């Protein structure tokens, strides 16, 4: 025992750090949050009771969990399922079928997936499944054969539920809900969706069969709770291998929370979104800055992470442009100012650019037209400009109408930060009529 303990203590600092990082990364990437989800106790209880009744009493149910992206719908469901499956006799009984609207894009695929997950495909010998119709009849018959008291309950989890509503005739949903409303195999149909108007997507007879239970997860917590969540998510658990390191780490996190600048960063983040995923993104960035030489998260790390998170992507692109391309962008800005957002073509941009060159020939090198076209195409590839028509419309490149996908504010910001930008170009950008 003592030997082991000493061995534990022997863990080098680097090992501790990498272990802590692995653990936290797992949390942030796989949404594996320790403990119960925060602030959704009543929803948690509702869902747990519902699933329990299906598992224990064989009562069929259907429920929708609705909430914006990153509100913790899947997290809640997984938490409830884990809790449910801890009970032994429930674990033996319940069958789970997980479907995702992004994967099972039509009912045929969904049916095959259900059959596979229920391990029914081997029941009819190793015969590969026939037609869609056979498949459906097969599955329905299988579900119909069961009854409330004798069959194992099946929990259907439909992620991205709204996408299932777009399947033809909503056959799958109709049948699942129909099973849930008739004395067949007990099922619990759980839909996860971020659409608040999901019920309007359902056809009336499908809707009628749905039990209209909706669990809303709307992340109604305040900033104080947000801080708590932040702390909880960064803390290492009690049973971390190196107790001393964990204590130090947690102490550091605690002090981090009290730091003024960190609070500001979090406040800003909280204002922008309550999404758990964006918080995880922020923490990931901060965490990745932790090294052996830099063993704890400092407020500066968070500031840097926040800066990275909130950076404007297009401004970043602008920084990498050449002066010629920048000039073209400025010309386009002027054009869209003059014509009030109307589209323009390359020839117009070129003319504008030529005018500028004629005036300030000493500061900017005059480029050949093909070079300018190349620069223009590069902007197109970067999607800073966007053609009005699709690629099918054949017009000459120079006369193809395009629109600028940059706001004036973005251009001005980029110019301010652009390294060694010729002053003439800057002036041209600010002056209304060059």
């Amino acid at each position: 025992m003592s030997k082991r303990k000493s061995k534990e203590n022997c863990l080098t600092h680097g090992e501790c750090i990498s272990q802590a990082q692995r653990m936290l990364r797992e949390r942030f990437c796989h949404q594996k949050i320790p403990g119960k989800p925060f602030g959704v106790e009543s929803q948690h209880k509702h869902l747990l009771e519902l699933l329990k009744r299906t598992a224990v009493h064989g009562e069929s149910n259907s429920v929708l969990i609705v909430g914006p992206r990153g509100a913790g719908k899947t997290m809640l469901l997984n938490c409830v399922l884990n809790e449910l499956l801890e009970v032994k006799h429930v674990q033996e009984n319940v069958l789970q079928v997980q479907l995702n609207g992004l994967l099972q894009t039509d009912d045929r695929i969904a049916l095959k997936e259900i059959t596979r997950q229920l391990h029914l495909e081997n029941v009819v010998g190793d015969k590969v499944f026939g037609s869609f119709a056979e498949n459906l009849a097969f599955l329905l018959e299988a579900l119909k054969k069961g009854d409330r008291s004798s069959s194992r309950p099946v929990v259907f989890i439909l992620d991205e539920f709204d996408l299932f509503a777009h399947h033809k005739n909503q056959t799958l949903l109709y049948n699942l809900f129909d099973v849930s409303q008739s004395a067949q195999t007990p099922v619990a149909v759980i839909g996860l969706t971020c659409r608040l108007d999901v019920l309007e997507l359902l056809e009336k007879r499908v809707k009628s069969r749905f039990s209209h239970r909706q669990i809303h997860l709307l992340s109604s917590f305040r900033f104080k709770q947000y801080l708590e969540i932040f702390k909880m998510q960064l803390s290492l658990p009690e049973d971390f291998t190196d107790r001393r390191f964990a204590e130090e780490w947690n102490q550091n996190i605690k002090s981090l929370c009290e730091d003024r600048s960190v609070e500001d960063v979090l406040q800003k983040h909280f204002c922008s979104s309550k999404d758990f995923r964006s918080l995880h993104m922020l923490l990931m960035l901060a965490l990745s800055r932790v090294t052996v030489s830099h063993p704890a998260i400092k407020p500066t790390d968070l500031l840097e992470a926040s800066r990275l998170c909130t950076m404007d992507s297009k401004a970043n692109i602008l920084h990498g442009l050449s002066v010629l391309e920048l000039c073209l962008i400025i010309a386009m800005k002027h054009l869209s100012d003059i014509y009030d957002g109307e589209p323009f073509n390359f020839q117009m941009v070129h003319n504008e650019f030529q005018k500028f060159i004629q005036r300030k020939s000493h500061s900017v090198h005059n480029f050949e037209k093909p070079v300018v076209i190349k620069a223009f195409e590069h902007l197109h590839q970067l999607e800073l400009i966007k053609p009005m028509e699709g690629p099918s419309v054949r017009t000459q490149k120079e006369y193809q109408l395009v629109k600028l996908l940059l706001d004036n504010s973005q251009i001005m910001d980029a110019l301010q930060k652009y390294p060694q930008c010729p002053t003439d170009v800057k002036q041209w950008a600010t002056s209304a009529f060059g």
Partner: protein
Amino acid sequence: MSRYFTRLKKRRVYSWIGGPSFIDRKLKHMFYEGLCIKTDGNTNTGCIRPGHYILIEGDEDRSYVAKLLKLYDDGTGTRSSKHAEVQWFVRFHEVPQNKRKRLGRDPHPNEVFLYEIPNCDSDIDAETIITTVQVQHLEENSPFPAAQSQENSLYVKLSWDGKSFSPVNLDLLLQSGGKPVLPASSHTDSLPKPDLDVSRGLAVDSPSRPTRSARQQHSSTSKYSQSKELSDRQPSNVISTPTARKKLQLSNSVKPPGSKLTRDDVLAELLDEDRAVSSLEAEVTRRRALASKPSSSPSKKPRDLCISLSPIRGGQITQDHQLANGTQIGPRLQPEELVKRTLKRESRAESTEGETPSKRKDSIKIDAPLDILIEDGGEVGGPVVAVTPRSRRKSAQVSSARIQQQLNYLNRKQSTDFDVDDDEEDVFLPTKKDLKSSSEEESESVTGRRGSRSAVPRTPRSSRKAPSRTPAKTPNKTPRRTPSKTPVPRTPRTPRHATPSIPSRTQPTRKPGNVLEEARARLHVSSVPESLPCREQEFQDIFNFVESKVMDGTGGCMYISGVPGTGKTATVHEVIRCLHHAAEQDELPSFCFIEINGMKMTAPHQAYVQILQMLTGQKATAEHAAALLEKRFSTPAPKRETTVLLVDELDLLWTRKQNVMYNLFDWPTRRQAKLVVLAIANTMDLPERIMINRVASRLGLTRMSFQPYSYKQLQQIITSRLNRVRAFEDDALQLVSRKVAALSGDARRCLDICRRATEICEFSSQRSGSGLVAMSHVMEALDEMFSSPYITAIRCASVQEQIFLKAVIAEFRRLGLEEATFQQVFRQHLALCRVEGLSPVCMSEGLTTCLRLGACRLLLLESSHRDLHLRVRLNVSQDDVLYALKEG
């Protein structure tokens, strides 16, 4: 065996025999004694008389079996003026698919059942009669005769009354004929022979048939030729038959003194000839048991046999009484070969030698079946073989005692079996072997049936018959048991139909513990209520409609509409339940109910496949199924039960050409179809809206519309479901029902709300403790289900999202439009940020915010690749947004 009859395209010419024997002046019907059938290309003519069993042209390549009762002409003089009245028999495949299991065993391929369903159309066109057939009655427990090459005889053991199989009531069989069961044997014109010959030529269509029949031919040459021989000698028999018939009738009417008239007695009377046969048989076996040498053939001592008949018979009647109610099926003997041979010898001897008064009765009785036998195309026939329990008993004793010791002998002899069989002279040896083998096989099949049915160990003997024998089949020499025929009724057994089910749970479900749980279980939509309140009128209408159609054996359509959750399907199911009940109580002819649901199939054409599967168990492609159904519903089949077809979610069966709907509504209009279609859909004007005229016209105007439930009805529904389980306060119930009635009138919704309310009550009662569901709980449940989540969602949104929503509204006001691009809104957004004192966000963040709002549909957005020029609209009213933001 009868498959080829409809393929027999040869024209048959029908004509009456003689003049009308009786004329019904009222109906202008002229009754005739017989019908003469002449087949084209064949000089032979056949005669059919009342009392004969006949084959009638049927559907699906199979002929129907019936017994001819009357022949008459309706005097119209048209081609189809010849009519016949028949007593129907059904083949096993004609029994509805879902009821076939009630037989409880595998049917014999040549087995038919007396059809005892009343008001079945027993009047047929006489010109659909194909030929006569031999039908013989067997005891319920007796095995099917294993006679060789009897392709033309059918066996009746049981009757079918639409619900169950029961032993044939022989009285009925007799009375319905009005004449003795025995086909009039005086007219032995060898009628079926030409037809059969023709058909036999045609029949060779299945691959296995030629070999089999060849083999049969081979193995039965001796008998065949013998019987032919017999039929050649027939005229001498004919002379004796008229008296025989008279005598028989006499013996039927006069009961033996002292014997009770049980059914068995009637049977015994009826099957007197069988008794004679069996006594003979028993005698033979007894004698054989005594005989030291198996070669002591009875054929060599016909006179001996005849003399010994009467005493044995006397003894056997008493035996019969002992056995009457016994339930024995032991290994028993089927020495039909032997009996046949001995009989033949005997009758031959008799017919040549004349009759002595002492044994006259017996000989006559033997005579009659022989006539059938001869009449039947010279094939050794059924009644002779029909084994009654008494013979069985004795032979069983003998045989069981001997089986063991003979087995070895048999094995040894097996190789020579064929040669011996062919030997005309040495008749006894092969027959004995047959006897043993059949009994042995019987016992084998008995064990096979008791056991797992699989892998019955084959006795060495069976190698001879191996190819097409199934272990459970009793008769080993059933003629024409071709693979093409037997699988038909047994298709469901194929692994393709194996239906898997969800594995059963290891732990039992918990029963509801308290009042609330009990109430919840009762309120679940799936729980079947005892009655359906508030739909009495609709129930009655549908009930009357279906009942009348089933009664009359006609068809019809009914269209039922109503918004979801108004009990359409439930009411129809209730009606069907009641009708089934009525049918079981014999108040109604039985019918079969099938249900399809437009939502439960992948394409409209799948409807055919499903209907066919449910009707017959066949699997077919959509086109093939459509063709089969078309044929089924367009061919006359008087014995068919009415089919009630429920088509749920009718609108899903819409196709561009609408042929699915067309067929569904066209079939009921056919006279023979006996199809009642109940179509259910949501919209009242569906026929007018989506159906083309010819479809709508066929659907007809029998329509019914289910109104949404009123609040009183909903209240009644809940109350009746709860059924005195007191879980709700009255006010709470009223609130629920009023609310739902105002919204949709959907009973499902109502039940779901109540269920949710019980849950809420349960949670809260853990704290407070009042057991009843109160107003507050119901309100909470209603809120959960009906309150729009938008306002809460806006209140819970992050600050930036709220500001963005404000910016959208501000931009809308500025533009005076309900639509703006993201760029425009974003400018407003930045301005608002400044006003609110927040640090301005960058464009990317703004766009993320916007898309997040779009994902939960607070905003309606175009796809995001349009970036700055994304058009933004609100999915909530501006007032709602402002209201939500103000409060927050």
